[in-house]
């Protein structure tokens, strides 16, 4: 093989490994496992009073491909890869701030995952809303 082809082969063969570690999900996992997940979003006002923000409220403010991840996600629902949501919880929190129309001073987003096999996993993001 030529040097360029050696480098290209090393790149394309190892890209899924890099993708598995990064946030792009480039690994060829081909929907081999399932996960049930739930999104809990809490807003708190300046006085510390907490209120729930429905993920469905966010679904109307995201693009078409992201809508299924949010609509009805306050109840457990099944999908085949929730990485795209997990690694973007801080952005989801910022979106929740915007969707809550100034009611929240801070927002907490919790993603609960229950894999088809394996240990449950909880990921949390908390941000202060800019006014």
């Amino acid at each position, binding site marked *: 093989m*030529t040097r360029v082809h050696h480098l290209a082969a090393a790149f394309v063969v190892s890209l899924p490994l890099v993708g598995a570690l990064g946030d*792009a999900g480039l690994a*060829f996992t081909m929907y081999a*496992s399932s996960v049930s997940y739930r999104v809990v979003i809490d807003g708190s006002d300046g006085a510390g009073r907490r209120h729930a923000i429905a993920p469905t409220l966010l679904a109307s403010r995201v693009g078409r*491909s992201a809508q299924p991840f949010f609509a009805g996600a306050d109840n457990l629902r099944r999908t085949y890869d929730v990485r795209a949501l997990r690694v973007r919880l801080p952005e989801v929190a910022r979106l929740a701030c915007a969707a809550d129309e100034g009611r929240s001073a801070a927002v907490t987003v919790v993603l609960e995952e229950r894999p*088809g096999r*394996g240990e449950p996993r909880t990921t949390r993001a908390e941000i202060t809303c800019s006014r």
Partner: protein
Amino acid sequence: MLTLKRPLPIARVALGVVFLLRTTPLVNVAPFARAFPLAAVNGPLYGWPEPGWPFAWDGLTLPDGVRIAACVVRTVAAVLFLLGVRARVAGLVAGACGFVALSQDPFGFVFTLHTLFLGTIVLALTDATSDLALVPDQRVGAASSARLVHLFVASVYAWSALAKAQPEWLSGDTLRALAGDGLLTAPATSLLLTQPALATASAWCIFLAEAALPALLLFTKTRRFGALFACILHVSFELGARPDVMGLVMAALLVTFLGPRASTGPRICVPSAACTTNFSAR
């Protein structure tokens, strides 16, 4: 078995057609929409900006103008790649612009597009651009080119098998879940949900097939059989799941295994002579 004199350029043309089909509204037209229900293009081209909160890989959100430009450049480059007009550069540009679109829609990520764009880049780096081309590129080496594409295709199956080497898949639970969620065809859903043992057996068959394919595809003596076996596997996927245009993407890439029987293995080097590669054309 079928032998193609110029499998790499044929694969380029085939993948170019699939590229244009999958990234333009052509895929929404009736016969294709029926054949590939999971493959739809929203807007004038795949990756066209849509309203809504922007998400992107690593938070690198691009302005709408840049995304639109990338869509247009990608489509022009894909046409040039198909026609063979400086197809090396065109394929690299088309694949890279494809990844730009993927990067701006992380929730819409599908493995089919990832494989399509990466496969286009891989083919662009080979002799696929030197034949069946209006403006051909210089050759870079037939054996080396074939080896690169073969390694890429084999790695797709290897990674896929690795992902399935876990209890949830091998128990058939994932297949039953896919069936329960309506992601498989009606006959497959009916079979898998009424006969649980069939889901387990199918899961094992798919895993074993994908695990065997890298070896079958990389050994010179078995690679044609491997390509045929892979095609049969994709036909079964189409019957059971219709996974976007993945079958077409892989079929285009599997064409590269139908060349004259030339060793694409390690070259033989002896201290007193130049390196040689063993060709035994049939």
